[in-house]
């Protein structure tokens, strides 16, 4: 009998639906044609099976000897068996037993597995170890053979045997449930419930179990299908209800005996059995969010690409990179970045700053053509050494990536392939980019590692990513970016995930590289300290557009846009000799989401200087020599000499994490992006 492995363990979301999100009626996951049909079929089989004595056209043992082994007919809709008995009546009379006994198996498996998992998750490591080791042994036993041995000893007692199967499977249930229970317990509201003095049983019943509901439902549906298969398999082997009692397994066994003269006999029973198991699995898949689904943005057709407006004037030869009017949008949806322009000169460092969700990362990624699926450049130009990078084929873009423009990302620990050694990961692109042999590539790899400040390069080359510290991994990632000797390095929050001391080292490394190799850098950061430290030019972004740009020193010393002022006010870097503020400042409110940007100034909703005319569109003004500022009141604010009043974060915001998130106050150091696609 084919026992399916409980593969749900791996891909069921361990983020169960919080109780508040659940709704009455059919769960959203099941409101699609496939799952609805599957549920309908299961319901139909259950109804027809349990009510079989009430509706079946013939008694299970009525023999129509004139029509033995008949195909479907008006008298026998599904045909007859070798004794001329009606298949339709027999199939559904046989149905109650597998359905009930499979339900019993599921009940026993969960009745043991779930309490064990809850106890193990609650009682700490020692208890968990004991239970887990024991279930590991149970898992490693050949359950089919043991089940047969049980039958060999106690005889064919179907319900008892199926209960034993439940015991054997409970180990697998425990393993899945333990993972879920542990992750549920780690969540905040469980702690809150415990602090509030709820008893252990109540915490489990009221909080932990409901959060596990989805996973339990998935597992139950899947196990139900498995149990039905096993039940039928046992009957097929002759360890089920005996004649004249009908059962699915024996009816298929009958069919196998008549495969030469009456193959139809196999069809009705097999189809009902298979459909029932398929239905159980379809329900499980739908609940787990697996299986076929409409993929909205997967296909990108050439016809749907919007017409891109192109300036056409050649790029300024002094700029290595010129971004003009760049607009990045969700395909067929709202813009994430709108009309962004900036330029990078050779050997200079440009910073893109702003809060999370302002489009910095999308802007940076579009430079390499590495936007996420379903997001693309819908307007503007990216002129790289005078050549427009927008609309390049994948092959043309690959020729630029690494060789001319390289990238280092936010999370050094996940930027390297965990399955390959550092040596392999460096040597492979070196050989491709520099057309050298293995030995020479290895030498270059060592040289690159030393160039990024790694002393024991030989040891690091032999290492795997998980053996490196964050700072070391970021140095390796930088070395990797240098393998193609690029002229521009795009660095997306290169120091955010690192310790403060390591941050400084990485920044000075980048500075040294710029000085020594003439590299240009576009650095994305939410940290004005980083910008002040390393950038020659700065572009301040807010809600997908550039609000202020120019040379770093004038922008930071004499900020013209209220948003830049607000960022500076919220900057936690304390100048030498000044006392540490007792409270950190914040910018009230949140960045408006793409699609809900106001028509006028997008910052107006959070600005201290907002007036009526801020809500009408206006052009950017020149500022800071060759920079710009996008504020209609810039001159008044400047002339009046007013400055942004930094609002300290309230005391309650520091204590209640949830509150801080819901009100969206931006704590002094702007929230770091963790998802990488957030801005």
């Amino acid at each position, binding site marked *: 009998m084919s026992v399916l492995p409980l593969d749900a363990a791996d891909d069921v979301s361990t983020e169960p639906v919080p109780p508040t999100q659940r709704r009455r009626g059919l769960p959203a996951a099941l409101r699609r044609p496939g799952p609805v049909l599957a549920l309908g079929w299961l319901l139909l089989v259950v109804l027809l099976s349990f009510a079989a004595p009430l509706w079946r056209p013939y008694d299970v043992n009525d023999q129509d000897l004139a029509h033995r082994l008949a195909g479907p007919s008006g008298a026998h809709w599904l045909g007859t068996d070798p004794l001329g008995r009606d298949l339709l009546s027999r199939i559904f009379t046989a149905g109650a037993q597998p359905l009930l006994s499979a339900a019993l198996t599921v009940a026993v498996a969960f009745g043991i597995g779930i309490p064990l998992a809850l106890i193990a998750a609650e009682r700490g490591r020692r208890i968990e170890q004991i239970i887990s080791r024991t279930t590991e042994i149970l898992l490693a036993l*050949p359950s089919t053979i043991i089940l047969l041995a049980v039958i060999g000893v106690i005889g064919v007692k179907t319900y008892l045997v199926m209960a034993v199967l439940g015991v054997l499977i409970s180990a697998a249930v425990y393993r899945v449930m333990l993972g879920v229970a542990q992750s549920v317990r780690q969540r905040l509201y469980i702690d809150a419930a415990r602090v509030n003095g709820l008893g252990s049983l109540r915490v489990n019943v009221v909080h932990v179990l409901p959060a596990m509901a989805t996973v339990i439902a998935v597992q139950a549906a899947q196990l139900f299908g498995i149990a039905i298969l096993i039940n039928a398999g046992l009957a097929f082997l002759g360890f089920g209800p005996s004649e004249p009692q009908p059962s699915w397994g024996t009816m298929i066994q009958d069919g196998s005996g008549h*495969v030469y003269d009456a*193959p139809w006999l196999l069809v009705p029973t097999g189809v009902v059995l298979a459909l029932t198991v398929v239905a159980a*699995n379809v329900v499980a898949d739908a609940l787990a969010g697996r299986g076929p689904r409409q993929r909205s943005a997967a296909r990108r057709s050439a016809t749907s690409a919007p017409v891109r407006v192109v300036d056409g004037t050649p790029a300024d030869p002094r700029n290595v990179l010129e971004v003009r009017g760049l607009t990045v949008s969700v395909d067929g949806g709202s813009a994430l970045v709108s009309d962004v322009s900036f330029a990078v000169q050779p050997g200079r460092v440009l910073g893109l700053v702003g809060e999370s969700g302002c489009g910095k990362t999308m802007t940076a990624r579009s430079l390499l053509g590495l936007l996420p699926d379903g997001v693309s450049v819908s307007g503007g130009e990216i002129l790289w050494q005078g050549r427009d990078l927008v609309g390049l084929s994948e092959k043309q873009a*690959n020729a630029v990536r690494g060789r001319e423009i390289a990238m280092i990302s936010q999370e050094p620990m996940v930027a390297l392939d965990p399955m390959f050694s550092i040596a392999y990961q460096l040597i492979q692109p070196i050989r491709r980019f520099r057309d050298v042999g293995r030995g020479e590539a290895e030498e270059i790899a060592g040289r690159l590692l030393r160039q990024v400040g790694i002393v024991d390069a030989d040891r690091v080359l032999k290492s795997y990513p998980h053996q490196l510290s964050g700072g070391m991994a970021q140095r390796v990632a930088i070395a990797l970016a240098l393998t193609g000797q690029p002229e521009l390095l795009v660095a997306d929050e290169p120091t955010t995930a690192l310790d403060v001391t390591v941050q400084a080292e990485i920044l000075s490394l980048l500075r040294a590289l710029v000085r020594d190799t003439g590299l240009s850098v576009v650095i994305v950061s939410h940290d004005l300290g980083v910008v002040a430290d390393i950038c020659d030019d700065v572009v301040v972004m807010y809600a997908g557009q550039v609000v202020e740009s120019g040379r770093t020193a004038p922008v930071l010393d004499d900020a013209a846009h209220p948003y830049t002022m607000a960022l500076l006010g919220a900057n936690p870097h304390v100048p030498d000799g000044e006392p540490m503020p007792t409270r950190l400042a914040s910018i009230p409110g949140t960045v408006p989401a793409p699609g809900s940007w106001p028509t006028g100034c997008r910052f107006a909703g959070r600005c201290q200087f907002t007036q009526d005319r801020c809500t009408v569109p206006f052009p950017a003004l020149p500022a800071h020599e060759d920079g710009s500022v996008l504020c209609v009141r810039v001159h008044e604010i400047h002339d009046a000499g007013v400055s942004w009043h930094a609002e300290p974060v309230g005391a309650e915001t520091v204590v209640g994490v949830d509150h801080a998130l819901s009100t969206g106050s931006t704590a002094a150091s702007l929230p770091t992006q963790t998802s990488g696609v957030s801005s």
Partner: protein
Amino acid sequence: MLAYLARRLALAMVTILAAVLISFLLVHATDGSPGAIVLGAGATPAEIAAKNAELGWDRPLVTQFFDYLGHLVRGDLGTSLIDSRSIGQDLATRLPVTGFIALFATLLSGIVGVVLGVTAAVRGGRFGTFITTSSGVALSLPAFWVGILLVYVLSIQLGWLPATGYVPFADSPIDWAKSLALPVLALTVGGAAIVARTANAGMRDALQAEHIRTLRALGTPAWRIRYVHALRSTSVPVISVLGIQFIVLFGGSVIVENLFALPGLGQASQAAVSAHDFPALIGVVIVATVVVVVTNLLLDLVVAALDPKVRTA
């Protein structure tokens, strides 16, 4: 790494011991009476009691258990209650039949499943949906039903393969392969579907991983990203599932051996169950457990070889 292996080895030993204990207790704790089985229905209670004493079943349970263990470590699984043949020798001739069916079915499932799952993940679109949907159906089909359908199509209609029967390898390697083809195919339908799902999910996850973006940012060719990097990380879950599949198919061979009349372990266990042949039952459980345990150990080694995090731990 060594500590890890030592722990797995210890677990393996404990599992085997647990299997011996469980099957031993199962047989002895119930009112099983070997004497009644040996002598058949006509025997008097006195005759049965005498036979039980002769077989040593009247001794204390602990004595019997250690006696059994003592024989077991010398490779002696006892004799059958039905025909007094040596259970060890009998199972030794049957093990290769079941072993090859399970092995071939696992390998074929692996090849077909990986090709379908990976192609579905890379190509996506309608083809991907078709593969995920049909593998969802295929893994739900009962192997015995699939087996009969295959017999109908491949033997009866097309006449390509023998419907039932077993030809030993020594007699004719080609006929041997033919006699295993249908059972292997019957088990492969569901097995390949499960592998295809795992490979598909693994590949899709792998292609979304952050380090894949690093590779793309370096202009790495698509084939290298897919078939070197993403496939390598997909290999770990796929190998694990293949190990589980081998174990499942090994147990599942009871059904196909019945269907195709193959003299394997499954057939032996079915016979032992029907005849209440207790020593044979225990023997089958132990042999099957050893196979499972050894498979799991090999699996650990393969995963360790594939995954540097395990290897260097």
